[in-house]
């Protein structure tokens, strides 16, 4: 059943991605001010949304784990954190490449960039903590606590860095606000690609989940081998 879902979702994501690439690259015209580079947005924005959905899911699943101690919830938390971190890396990399053309620099300490980087660091430390603990129950418990801390922190970070940047308005901000209303066809393309990336992310999470289950099975069998 699970296998079938994975294959169906993967196929749907692949078809959607090909269709979206066609629309993005060949149907939609260049944006008047930015030129072709604006197309990066069709992956940048959906990746950002996907990664936050994943981090939220990881936080909720961690809280449920602490309440129920069901190892399945721990597996969901780690799977969605890992996949979201991959998407967060996509967000940072594509944002940087876009900034190089539009702002002339790879990086600027703008509010969103900084917050995204902090977010990335927080969840990278989550994965590091998991590697540092060998005992499965302890690993699940401690990383669930960290995940809850991290998600609460993301909210505070987002708010505080916004204050930080509104206190010292930089020249980059005016460019951001210059976007204005979006062409409906372009907006639709963003939503289509969001759907594609969410499906793709879901496939990755399911695969990662299966691996986590396999690992548990191995651990159980190893204990059995010891008992014999």
């Amino acid at each position, binding site marked *: 059943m699970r296998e079938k879902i994975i294959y169906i979702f993967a196929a749907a994501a692949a078809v959607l991605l090909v269709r979206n690439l066609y629309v993005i690259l060949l149907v939609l015209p260049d944006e008047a001010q930015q030129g072709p580079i604006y197309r990066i947005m069709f992956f940048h924005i959906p990746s950002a949304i996907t990664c936050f959905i994943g981090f939220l899911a990881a936080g909720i699943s961690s809280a449920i784990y*602490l309440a129920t101690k069901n190892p399945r919830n721990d597996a969901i938390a780690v799977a969605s954190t890992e996949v979201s971190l991959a998407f967060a890396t996509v967000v940072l990399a594509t944002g940087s490449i876009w900034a190089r053309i539009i702002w002339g620099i790879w990086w600027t300490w703008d509010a969103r960039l900084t917050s995204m980087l902090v977010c990335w660091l927080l969840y990278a430390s989550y994965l590091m*903590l998991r590697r540092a603990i060998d005992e499965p129950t302890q690993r699940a418990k401690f990383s669930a*606590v*960290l995940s809850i*801390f991290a998600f609460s922190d993301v909210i505070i970070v987002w708010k505080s860095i916004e204050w930080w940047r509104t*206190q010292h308005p930089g020249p980059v901000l005016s460019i951001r606000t210059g976007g204005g209303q979006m062409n409906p066809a372009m907006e639709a393309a963003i939503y289509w690609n969001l759907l594609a990336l969410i499906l793709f992310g879901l496939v990755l999470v399911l695969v990662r989940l299966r691996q986590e289950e396999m690992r548990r099975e191995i651990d159980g069998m190893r204990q059995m081998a010891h008992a014999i």
Partner: protein
Amino acid sequence: MQQTKQRGAMSWVGDVAVIFGKDLRAELRTKEALNASLSFALVILLLFSFAFDPSSEQTHDIAGGLLWIVYAFAGTLILNRSFVRELPNDCLDGLIAAPIPAWTLFLGKSLANFVLVLAVELISLPIFGIFYNVRWAQQGWALLLVLALTTWGLTVVGTMFSALTVNLRIRELMLPILIYPIMIPALLGAMEVTGPLITGKPLEGDLLTWVRLLVGFDIIFTSLSVALVETVLVG
């Protein structure tokens, strides 16, 4: 649980005080972490003088940031020791088995760490003032308030993760990796307020926003830690 009830509703204050006193006494007898933290703070202050021209106006502008980098690094040394100290002779198991809730143990330890880290900060602040020719005492009380608020936030997060990492092989490596990203909002707020305060600006207007942020950070992470410390220590 029943025992706690018999001893009255406010008995947790006594439990916290006992742990607090025990930790403080243990540290003051050896002064291991305190000395290490202080000398570390001094060394970083010295190193910064090579990185930035100590007499220039620009250094005054970034003084708040420098100060908090020193405090964050030096404070970690104390936080690292907080639970590690209990490992020899299985003291930690004894503490966990004691008939007090885990969160009182946590609060007592946090308070002790708070006092120790604040002491390091208050000692290195005048030294910083001398080295970098900063007249930091103009807004003394406001500065003390910001120091206390931020330090509480840092020690709560630090003590919580000190408890979480105590049983790991690589705890000394994990603690900074885990706590610095979480501390970022508190450190950002503290840096933004401390800079102007040190140069004599009063605590008002925009600066109050940052104080509110610090208060919010303290409340959120104190309650999260108190709620979750039981899972971390006992399971």
